[in-house]
Structure formats: C-alpha cells, structure tokens
C-alpha cells in the first residue's frame, strides 16, 4: 500500500464520490436499519412474521421476481428487434419504450386502470387481482432490460457470429456460445434494476391492485399503513426486509453472471 498511488485529483474525486454516496444513500440506509430495530429485535420479528405483513412481503417479492424473469426474455427480444431488424416505425418504438420511465407512476396507474379495468376497451378486467399487480409491474419495468442490452448488442461484432457459423456452429450453438456470454452481464444488470424497481413500486399498482390484505396488498402499501398508524419501527422493518431481499438478489445475479460469462 503506497500512499502515492492516489493522485490529488483522483483523491478529490474519490472523496466527492464517497460524500455524495453517503449523503444520498448510506446515511438514509443506516437510518432505516436503526429505526427498524428501535423497538428491539422481538418487535422486528413480530412485525415481519405477522400473517398480513408476511403475505404482503411474499406477494411483492414473488411478483417482482416474475416481472424480472419475463423482462429477461421479452426485454432481450425487444432489444434484439430494435438493433438487428429494420422496420417502419422503429424510431417511434425507440421512444415509446422509455415512456414507463418518464410517466409519473400514479398516471401510469390511471392509464392501466382505464385500459384493464371495468371499462376496458379490450374487455380485460384485472382490477383487484394479482394479475393486475403483475401487469403494472411489467409496465414500469419494461425499459430496464431493453436499455441495458441494446448498447451491448450494437457494439457486438456480427462478424463473430458469421465466423462461428462458418466454422460449423448451428444457430443455437452460436447463440449459446457466442452471443449469450456477451449479453449476460447486460441482461442480469437490467434484470436487477427491474427487480429492484418492482419490489418498491407503489404508484402504478395502487389503483389497479385493490389492496385487499392477504390477497393483493403489496409491501409498499403496508409501509404506508404503518406510517399512518404512527408505527415507524414497523414501516422501517418492512423496508429493511425489502432492502435485504434486493441485496441478496443483486448479489445472486452478479454471481450467476460471472459464472455464465466464464463458462462462455
């Protein structure tokens, strides 16, 4: 460890990054951890094992995992179509993909309710069902995988695929041995983002989900209820569980990504 390894501008940069990160992320996170244990370990366990809270947490995590998985397949496909295919309206589609990012989520909720509620022009009514929640999550998480995979695909040299083909590799083998290893880091990064977003979503699904305890109540709504009931420790406990689950999923995806990339 030589002290000279960090130049002065680099040190300043690191300092700024750490300060920024602390103020915006670390300190609020520490506050959540602290307040979740304000009532003691017993109370934390009591809160998250309460049947209603546990049901909300389970529903949220499972739905978010499902949404991330669907995005892995559909998002990658959309990215592929956007990069490799030429078709009329492509430029429009490029822009539309990002709308779920830009739309305030409560507006998204209203739009979904109009489209898939009792007055649905498509005849699909998913209000107060878990399918409704899933739909809302798919909507808000759509851009993540598309936008992480797209730039990697653009950079990917098509010559490599052709070389693989000329050496006798079938389409599937080319995909598995050449394309997938290159795309996996981007796909997992997109899936992690989608999962993290889905697990904390509130606005887009509060209108369509019906919020019935044990059936369609998600964790973020449970947090709101704890706050309204002046139970901050309860709210922080649920938030902490979401944080830990996110962390576990992020780490798991990272490990998976490394493994697959190495095997390729």
């Amino acid at each position, binding site marked *: 460890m030589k002290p000279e390894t960090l130049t002065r501008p680099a040190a300043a940069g690191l300092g700024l990054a750490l300060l920024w990160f602390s103020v915006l992320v670390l300190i609020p996170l520490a506050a959540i951890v602290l307040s979740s244990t304000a009532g003691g370990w017993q109370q934390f366990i009591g809160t998250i094992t309460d049947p*209603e809270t546990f049901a909300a947490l389970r529903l949220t995590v499972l739905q978010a995992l499902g949404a991330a998985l669907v995005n892995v397949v559909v998002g990658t496909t959309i990215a592929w179509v956007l990069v490799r295919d030429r078709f009329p309206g492509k430029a429009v589609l490029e822009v539309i993909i990002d709308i779920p990012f830009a739309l305030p989520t409560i507006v998204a909720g209203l739009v979904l309710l109009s489209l898939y*509620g009792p007055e649905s022009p498509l005849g699909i009514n998913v209000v*107060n069902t878990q399918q409704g929640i899933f739909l809302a999550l798919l909507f808000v998480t759509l851009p993540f995988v598309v936008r992480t995979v797209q730039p990697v695909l653009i950079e990917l040299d098509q010559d490599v695929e052709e070389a693989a083909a000329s050496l006798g590799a079938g389409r599937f083998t080319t995909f598995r041995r050449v394309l997938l290893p290159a795309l996996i880091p981007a796909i997992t990064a997109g899936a992690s983002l989608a999962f993290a977003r889905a697990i904390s979503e509130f606005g887009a699904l509060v209108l369509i989900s019906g919020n019935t305890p044990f059936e369609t109540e998600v964790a973020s709504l449970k947090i709101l209820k704890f706050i*309204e009931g002046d139970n901050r420790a309860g709210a922080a406990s649920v938030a902490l569980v979401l944080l830990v689950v996110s962390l576990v999923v992020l780490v798991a995806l990272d490990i998976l990504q490394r493994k697959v990339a190495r095997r390729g």
Partner: protein
Amino acid sequence: MKTWKSRLAVTAAAVTAVLGMTACGGAAGASGPQLSLVGFSVAETANKAAEAKFQQTEAGKGVTFSGSYGASGDQSRKVAAGAKADYVQFSLESDVTRLVKAGLVSPDWNTNSTKGIVSESVVVLVVPKGNPQHITGWEDLTRPDVKVITPDPKSSGSARWNILGLYGHELATGKSAADASDFVTKVFANVTQWAGSGREATEAFDKKVGNVLISYENEAILARQKGKDYDYIVPKDTLLIENPGAVLSKADPKAKDWLDFVLSKDGQTQAAKAGFRPVIDGVKTDVQGANDPSNPFPTPDRLLTVGKDFGGWAAVDKKFFADGALIDQLRAAAVKK
C-alpha cells in the same frame, strides 16, 4: 441542512407574500402578519372563501394567508416535524393530539365552545347518477351485486369515519357487537378497492371499479359542485364527522382571531357553502350541489358520535384500528369467506 430548509422556507414565504400582495392590489396593506394554515385536502375550498371574508373584518384587516393542504395524517406529521403553521385543521382528532404530544398545541385546545371542532359532516354513500341499483342504506352494502370502494382506514386516517359509520349502523339499530362484526365482515367481503387515499378512492369510483363509494357528505357536495354527476345517499342512521381545528402555541396572535372568525356565523356560512355542516346554530344558506340546496343538511333519524357512542378516539383507535385490532381481524375473516 437546517439552514437550507429555513432559507428555502423564508424564500417561499417571501414569494407567497409578494404574490399575495400583488393579487390583492395592495388593498390589504403590507403591514399585516401572514398566517400559515395547514389543513386536510377538502378544507381548502371552504378556507379560501373564509379567508376573503375574514380580511374584510376589523380583526382580519391586513392579514394574509399561506395554505398547505394534503392528507390529514401527512399534514399533521409534517407540522410535528417542524413545518411552519399558525393554524391547523385536520380530519381526525388524533392528528391534533399528535401535535399536543409534540408540545406544539396547548392541551386545552378542545375546551372552547365547540370542543375544538370547526366543521362537521356525516358519512354518506355515493352512487352513480340515478342510483341504478336503488341503494337506500347500509344494509344494501351486503348485497351480492354491490361492489364497495372505500379508502383504507389503515393508510388513510380519514377513512376511519367511514368504517365506524358502517359498524355503528348495527349498534344504531339495536344489534349486538357480535352482529356488528358479522355485518362489517360481510361488507368487507364486498369491497373491491381499499384505496390508499380518498383521492384514489374517487378515481377508482370514476373508473367504475365499484358501484358504491363510502364517503363524506361534504366531499360528495363539493364533487357535485365541481361537475361530477354522482348521487349520494344519507343513510337513516349514520356517523357525525367532526373535524378539529387548533391554533398553535407559538402562533401569531391573529391566528386566534382567525379561529374565532371560523367559528362565527360568517365563517360557518362559508364552510356550509363548501358542503360542511355548521357547528353552531342559526347558519342559514343555500348549498349548491346538495341533494336539496334549500335544505342541504337533513337530520338523520339517528346520528352517532365518536364521543357518545364509541367512547372517544383513544378508545376507538385501540379497539378498532390498532395493528391486529378488530378491523384487521374482520378483514382477515372477510378474505376467508
């Protein structure tokens, strides 16, 4: 952080003051104090009208206002956390109690002639125009063809009035507590949307997620004034909604004059025009948007109150709305049905 916040607050106050003065064309005079009103959402229309009238009185000359309106619980927590306020007006007494505990409001705030209450309303049932399902009262909410929307009492404190109205129906008709629980469970099984807030409940109702919305009379009247084509039914027995208002301990002295005005005949008339039931006798005014504008506030056969029939808010919160208390139990039972 603190200085940023206070600087921001000062800037905001200055901008508001300047805007306020320009709007009044200088007639209000630049010397008067500015009162910060912090209230629950639907109080805004009534307050805006009352502010203009107050400024015309001797006591209100030169006083300007800044208003902040939102969900009652959020507003209360905001003030408890240090947001500036001279006068607060909430949906629920417990939102004032929070400020009493924080030392911001005097413990004797509810000892005046109206016991701290500044506006009243009743729990009503809102239905689509023409009442196609012929809803007449609480009993209809258990019908299989009825889908109920209400804000969730756990996420929207104001919805606690709705749930007590529902529960109180059985008590008002002489039934036992067990019958009341059974009745509420049946209605809960018919709820298609436990909305996060009153606003979201209305959105869901507009989108036909349900066909009966449990709401307040004043909100129904205000919505009709704003052009919504709802009908509303005042059940034969229902719950009296009592919204508290209080002056903060460190408020500008003019805040007390404002509260006096709010409780005066003039002040209550403005509130009545926005749909609230007056808290004093002798207020006579037509109310647009009411079922009968010339007799806007019909007296129900039986009007329950939280104080007389439920033993006060402290008892209510403990028995009904605490985590794991009666409402949680009945909801769990409704899901299993």
